[in-house]
């Protein structure tokens, strides 16, 4: 008896669901909508208008070399138009959180995303360790600026792209391809040299 009630209830639910599904299918529209502001119906007029729009988009696209960084796959591309000049593996932001033991500050180690540009080119860069680097290693934050300087950890070159973020070299080559950094982009030595040499101040960087 219980089995029969359960079976009938099950069939009943299926019938209800199928009815809902059929109704949903019936009321679903499959037509896209064109905004009413598009009044042009003349073929030539539309072609001309679209050509102008396409030119407008191309005009705002990057000129010359530009850099694309895929933080999901940890890849960097040096491109010119649709041509890829260089594609190599990098390390990008870990996404981890560090809290100051005092509870006053917090850092999220994400690589920023969006459009940036090369703001500085540095050969033989020195790392000016920020506060979080000392907190992470349970060290006291130095009062003298000189005590923050560390040489050799950023590789041979660095490209600054704003807010203290850089594309630079690394001592941890085995970690290339992983999200391990504090937000900067680490690149292997040879590829970094190519990117450094072909980039200029103002070269666009797209990070996603």
């Amino acid at each position, binding site marked *: 008896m219980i089995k029969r009630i359960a079976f009938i209830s*099950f069939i009943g639910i*299926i019938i209800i*669901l*199928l009815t*809902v*599904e059929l*109704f*949903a*299918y019936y*009321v*679903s*529209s*499959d*037509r*896209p*909508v*064109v*905004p009413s502001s*598009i009044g042009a*119906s003349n*073929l030539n007029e*539309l*072609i001309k*208008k*679209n050509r102008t*729009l396409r030119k*407008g*988009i*191309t005009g*705002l*696209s*990057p000129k010359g070399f*530009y850099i*694309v960084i*895929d*933080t*999901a*796959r940890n890849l960097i591309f040096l491109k010119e138009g649709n041509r890829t000049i260089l594609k190599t593996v990098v390390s990008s932001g*870990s*996404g*981890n*959180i*560090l*809290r100051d033991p005092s509870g006053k500050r917090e850092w*999220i180690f994400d690589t920023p*995303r*969006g*459009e940036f540009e090369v703001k500085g080119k540095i050969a033989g860069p020195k790392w000016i360790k920020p506060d979080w680097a000392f907190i*992470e*290693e*349970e*060290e006291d934050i130095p009062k003298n600026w000189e005590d923050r300087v560390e040489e050799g950890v950023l590789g041979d070159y660095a490209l600054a792209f704003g807010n203290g973020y850089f594309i630079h070299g690394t001592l941890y080559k*085995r*970690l290339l391809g*992983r*999200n*391990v950094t504090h937000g900067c982009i680490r690149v292997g030595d040879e590829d970094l040299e190519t990117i450094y040499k072909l980039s200029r101040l103002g070269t*666009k960087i*797209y990070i*996603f």
Partner: protein
Amino acid sequence: MKKANLQFNFPLFLFLILFSLGSSSQAIAGGDSIGQKIRALKDENCLLEAELGLVSKGTSYIILDLRTESDSVPVRINLKNRGIVLREFDAERIRYRRTKGLVIEPIPLIKKMAFFPLKRKEIRPHKPEDGADTISQVDFLELKDIPSNYTLSFGKGLLISIAGQPKGLISRFIHLIRSTLIHIRYSLAIVWDHFWKNDFAIIEIIMGNEDAQALYWSLNEGMSIVIMGGHPYDTI
């Protein structure tokens, strides 16, 4: 034995019926009439106007062109910035349902919703030990930690449900159950919104697991999407 088979096959049967009802062919009608050319140009005009607005802002955006779907050419989700394609994501299967229809214009992403949302890991400060390889032992947030099944809630009542392609028998079964439940939920929502006269559009996308995770990673709330429809108009 027969009963056992019947009970096991019912969800599959229901799923197949729902799936076949919900699926829609996205083929573009052939023909070279002026009317069709004007329609295509009007579509392109809307897309270009929307894209020009986004390009001038310099932010990343998504273009989803449902018209490209056919047996051989998959629908591509293009992540772009300043008119250049940053990455293409291939959709293996797409279902598109809506109560009224979407205008071809930028629609902002409001929220990313996942059953198992992304959790950031916290660094515990520690003194580096001499000679110890501490950095490779740290637990980093990586692509494998990102959800592959999630829903993107956009403005104008647009929901995009992304599901990674399941691997293995158990995950296929879970995927089947999940897809069925999502489909039922969306069908109920469509009926509800029809009666309350709300706009509601649903796009269900199945794609490779890693692509689904990478897409989740790449999308930021506030980012816009422009969707091109997949069906010809009835009238010009």
